[in-house]
């Protein structure tokens, strides 16, 4: 991408640069379309509405988890506990399928546990000012360990992913519209509205841009951060519910392999890991790009090791091109 822009006259470079910086979604969508076209060429006839539905269905849990990373990264943080929390919520819900309160009770209890984990992380980050990376890392150990304990306790009661989660997670309407949009669309609308239209959203950007300035302007950053990490944990829990439904599995390590891609999706989507810049729209496209990329590498018939290498190399290349074009880090 950067090579192509070099050929423009000087005014053109500035225009392209501004486009990338202000509307990262446009070039990212272009990249997404290019990837889809390559898949269409590599395997003619595979790209159709049904295929798009399956891709979207695969991308939804990743996009929600990447939302957690986007929100925390806007304040200069990161949330490494999302995969442990997502797995825990999916797993605990599945083990409570035979309890009296049924599925609703399982979801309520597991999401409450997720919120508690987020509350503790938020206090660690907001009040005690410990680095978010390390607080959420420690929290992921705690959540994973407790989920394992719960697993040993509940082994005899039997478990299964509830039917309703399976329907939401893996069902397709008209063989092309994933049911999980019922969950995903409200999540997207809420996050976008929050970031663009509410004072709380402004505060997230303000704290990420310059926390001292935000605090001196009267923002109570510790309250903002506690709410943020509770919200992130709840979003992770929702992603876990969708993921367990989509894969029809409940395991304490279900979402582990999504942790690094969730960070990558937010970064590719144009959110700065240092805070203050970015948004959820780019992240969603980033999650779609990663999902389509994984599908492309599978379609090309590359063996697993090569897929991993290419996957990593492309993340670096996209991030580098983005940095080069916008001149920002």
């Amino acid at each position, binding site marked *: 991408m950067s090579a192509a822009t070099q050929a423009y006259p000087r005014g053109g470079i500035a225009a392209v640069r501004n486009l990338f910086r202000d509307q990262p979604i446009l070039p990212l969508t272009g990249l997404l379309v290019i990837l889809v076209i390559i898949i269409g060429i590599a395997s003619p006839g595979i790209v159709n509405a049904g295929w798009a539905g399956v891709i979207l269905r695969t991308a939804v849990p990743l996009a929600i988890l990447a939302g957690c990373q986007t929100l925390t990264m806007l304040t200069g943080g*990161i949330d*490494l506990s999302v995969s442990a929390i997502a797995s825990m919520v999916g797993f605990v819900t599945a083990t409570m399928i035979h309890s009296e309160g049924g599925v609703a009770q399982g979801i309520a209890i597991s999401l409450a546990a997720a919120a508690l984990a987020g509350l*503790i992380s938020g206090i*660690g980050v907001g009040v*005690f*000012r*410990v*680095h978010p*990376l*390390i*607080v959420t*890392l*420690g*929290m*992921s*150990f*705690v*959540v*994973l*360990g*407790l989920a*394992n*304990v719960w697993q*040993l306790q509940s082994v005899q009661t039997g478990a299964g992913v509830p039917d309703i989660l399976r329907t939401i997670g893996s069902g397709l309407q008209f063989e092309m519209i994933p049911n999980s949009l019922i969950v995903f669309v409200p999540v997207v609308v809420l996050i976008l509205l929050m970031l663009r239209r509410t004072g709380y959203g402004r505060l997230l950007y303000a704290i990420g841009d310059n*926390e001292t300035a935000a605090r001196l302007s009267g923002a109570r950053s510790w309250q903002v951060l506690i709410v943020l990490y509770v919200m992130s944990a709840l979003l992770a829990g929702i992603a876990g519910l969708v993921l367990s439904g989509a894969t029809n599995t409940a395991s304490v390590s279900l979402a582990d392999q999504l942790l*690094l891609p969730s*960070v*990558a999706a937010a*970064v590719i989507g144009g959110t700065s*890991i*240092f805070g203050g810049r970015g948004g959820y729209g780019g992240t969603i496209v980033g999650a779609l790009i990663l999902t389509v990329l994984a599908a492309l590498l599978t379609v090309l018939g590359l063996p*697993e*090791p*090569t*897929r*991993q*290498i*290419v*996957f*990593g*190399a492309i*993340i*670096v290349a996209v*991030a*580098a091109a983005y*940095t*080069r074009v916008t001149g920002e*880090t």
Partner: protein
Amino acid sequence: MSAAAAPVGATRADPAGAISKFGRRNAWVLGLLGVLIGLFLFTKGIQPRYGPIPIQGLAVSVLPLVFAAVAQAIVVIGGGIDLSIGSMMALTSVVSATLMQDQSEAFAVGVVIGVLLLGLLIGGINGGLVVVTRVPDIVVTLAMSFVWAGFALLVRGAPGGGAASWLTGLVRGPLGNEWIPMAAVVGLVAIVVIWMPLSRSRLGLSIYAIGSDRLAAFRSGVPVGRTRIVAYMMTGLFSALGGLALTATTGIGSPVPGPYTLLSVAAIVLGGVSLAGGRGGVFGPIIAVVILQLIQTDLTFLSVDSNLALVAQGLLLIAVLMVGSLIDMRRNRQ
């Protein structure tokens, strides 16, 4: 976010002043050492048979993570972070195990040297990409963790291979006195031989300088880009030592990265290295690794569920840092 450097005591020449200065500068490490000794006594208390043999086992089991923690400490002191350490360890481990299988003992010496050079190379690639692309460290190394893990799988699809008997002998048993585990001596010697000259050299000072304040270091004439690459190369070198330790302690190489990346981050922060860069050393993280492992051993002796041990480690990590951060905040207020 992290506090400014600890106030340095008056530079008096009297020995008492020097000792108190040393104590203040290394308060965190000395505290960790105290905790470690307390833990050993506690372990002996709950399990009177805890003696030389379990201590040798402890040294063997912590060795890979000790190297991983040192690797992470160096790059974080330089103001970066490397999330590909676990993958680099997997790659170097499978390469060494594959090359050493059914080969002569002498050939294995060449393999070990080659693998250490490989560590320098892949660490240098990480650092070069960080410097050239100007993409944040965490993003580049995160992506490179896929790349190195992919290469590890290319080398060997499943765990296997072999290790030269002198290499496995290097980490097994005691050295002289039965209370001195071979693995601990080998690990410490490797770290001291590489780290001590480095940290006392101009290069080591430059690594601390760019981690503390990159702009100030640049204006003082430190070649920032080159120094960052060297820091990453050192991280690659210690990751390779970690990979060799994996091969030596297990006798095979596994292409699947262990939990070393995230554990190394936890260990260095517990060990007094600031994630903001420029502060800390490698000995705090080493003690922290041993403490974490010993807590797990103790909980096993107390027949606590091993999963609760994980919970305890996580809570300990958060609690210790909260306390450390509180102390920092109070000191700043005064």
